[in-house]
């Protein structure tokens, strides 16, 4: 069996669709690459204009605000996205790049001073949180608060992750920013304009909610997957070290193979046909990124990690007008991680690993780790 099993292959090859029940609702998952990209573009049929229902399972129980800009359709979406897009392009600025590189270097250095670490709690989670402080331009100490929330800020079905912590925190920070605006993300939201007016508090909460929920477990699982991959493939680090230009394609390949967000929903307000499956009005389909990223018609030897894969038209950051706004930040973080590992680490030894398993009615998929103990050996 592949090191990175693909639970969708059989259905993708047979019909291109897998109907999976979520919370009692049968949802056709679109599995093929080309069909998925076409559906992602066709917002008139497959809509995002549905608060709480774009994620599957739905999130009515864990949040009170509509996430922005993702839970809207064009042309409203286009205007909403334009509000925060400049902030999410900050990772292209030289001083932001330098700060993220510096952070990752410090974190890797710290692992080398230890005999062993639990990667998830002592590396991936704090790294994601601290890097987010740089993106949002807030003090690094804020990460201590965020780390307490765990891998997911909210999780449908987990009574300990009901999203109230996040709501309280965001309300507090937006209040403070409104009273005394600075150069941080919260202040930006309180000052930003949408169609000639200031954002309402509910809209500010919607943007902020997504900024915290969207790039959290996805980044954390990808970082852990990368660490584990190097533990299992000692030659991979030397391969990257031999030519630093390999780091950029390697990051894209890790995002493709990890596909940390398995799927996302779209609502068919008027009903639709999806690869022979009838979706009733108000029903949903899922765009299955994880399956499209293994489509054998697009990717040669799709279950194998090829660090220099090129071209690599993966959809790990989504596709179309809703493609991940945090992608530039995630890429900066992951490229910095590979650079720091190449520069400082000779090899990584896996001591104990417990994969994170996403178990749904119609498929089971590994998306990262619940626990990963490893030793980092200095170069």
């Amino acid at each position, binding site marked *: 069996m592949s090191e990175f099993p693909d639970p969708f292959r059989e259905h993708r090859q047979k019909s291109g669709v897998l109907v999976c029940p979520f919370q009692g609702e049968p949802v056709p998952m679109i599995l093929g690459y*080309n069909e998925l*990209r*076409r559906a992602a*573009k066709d917002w008139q049929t497959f809509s995002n204009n549905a608060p709480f229902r774009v994620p599957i399972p739905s999130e009515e129980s864990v949040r009170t605000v509509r996430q922005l800009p993702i839970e809207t359709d064009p042309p409203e979406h286009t205007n909403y996205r334009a509000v925060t897009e400049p902030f999410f*392009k900050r990772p*292209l600025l030289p001083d932001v790049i330098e700060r993220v590189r510096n952070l990752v270097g410090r974190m890797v250095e710290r692992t080398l001073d230890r005999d062993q670490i639990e990667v998830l709690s002592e590396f991936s989670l704090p790294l994601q949180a601290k890097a987010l402080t740089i993106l949002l331009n807030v003090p690094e100490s804020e990460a201590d608060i965020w780390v307490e929330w765990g891998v997911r800020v909210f999780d449908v079905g987990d009574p300990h992750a009901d999203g109230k912590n996040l709501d309280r925190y965001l309300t507090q920070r937006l209040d403070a920013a409104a009273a005394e605006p600075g150069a941080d993300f919260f202040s930006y939201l309180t000052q930003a304009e949408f169609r000639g007016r200031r954002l309402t508090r509910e809209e500010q909460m919607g943007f902020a909610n997504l900024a915290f929920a969207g790039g959290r477990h996805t980044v954390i699982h990808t970082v852990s997957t990368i660490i584990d991959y190097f533990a299992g493939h000692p030659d991979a680090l030397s391969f990257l070290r031999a030519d630093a230009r390999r780091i*950029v*394609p390697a*990051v*894209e390949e890790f995002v493709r193979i990890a596909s940390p967000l398995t799927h996302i929903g779209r609502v068919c307000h008027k009903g639709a046909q999806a690869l022979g499956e009838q979706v009733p009005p108000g029903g949903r389909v899922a765009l299955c990124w994880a399956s499209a990223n293994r489509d054998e018609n*697009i990717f040669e030897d799709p279950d194998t990690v090829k660090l220099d*894969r*090129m*071209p*690599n*038209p*993966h959809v790990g*950051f989504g*596709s*179309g007008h809703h*493609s991940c706004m945090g*992608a*530039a930040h995630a*890429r900066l973080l992951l*490229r910095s991680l590979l650079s720091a590992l190449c520069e400082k680490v000779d090899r990584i030894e896996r001591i104990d690993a417990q994969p994170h398993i996403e178990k749904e009615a119609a498929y089971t998929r590994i998306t990262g780790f619940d626990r990963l103990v490893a030793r980092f050996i200095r170069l």
Partner: protein
Amino acid sequence: MASITFITPSGATRTVERKDGSLMEAAVQNGVEGIDADCGGVCSCATCHIHVEPEWVDRVGPPGSAERALLELQDVTNERSRLACQVRINDALDGLVVRVAAR
């Protein structure tokens, strides 16, 4: 050495000299507006979309299959569209003029 001219969506013109690499790298290293190149050149993000000026289309050549699939779903694609990351610079492209696609 090839001299490449980029015309940005706002109408600014930027000419750069380069002997190899991709059109995307040439644009990014010279801060050409509108070429974000998020994915770093692996043909995944389509944020380096350009339109080749008509007289250069034959010399630049057509997109490959992965590139074509990405371009087909962009709003402003036309028969002269390419992704700058997939166009290699060589002497035959000296004088090339491309327009950065508006997004």
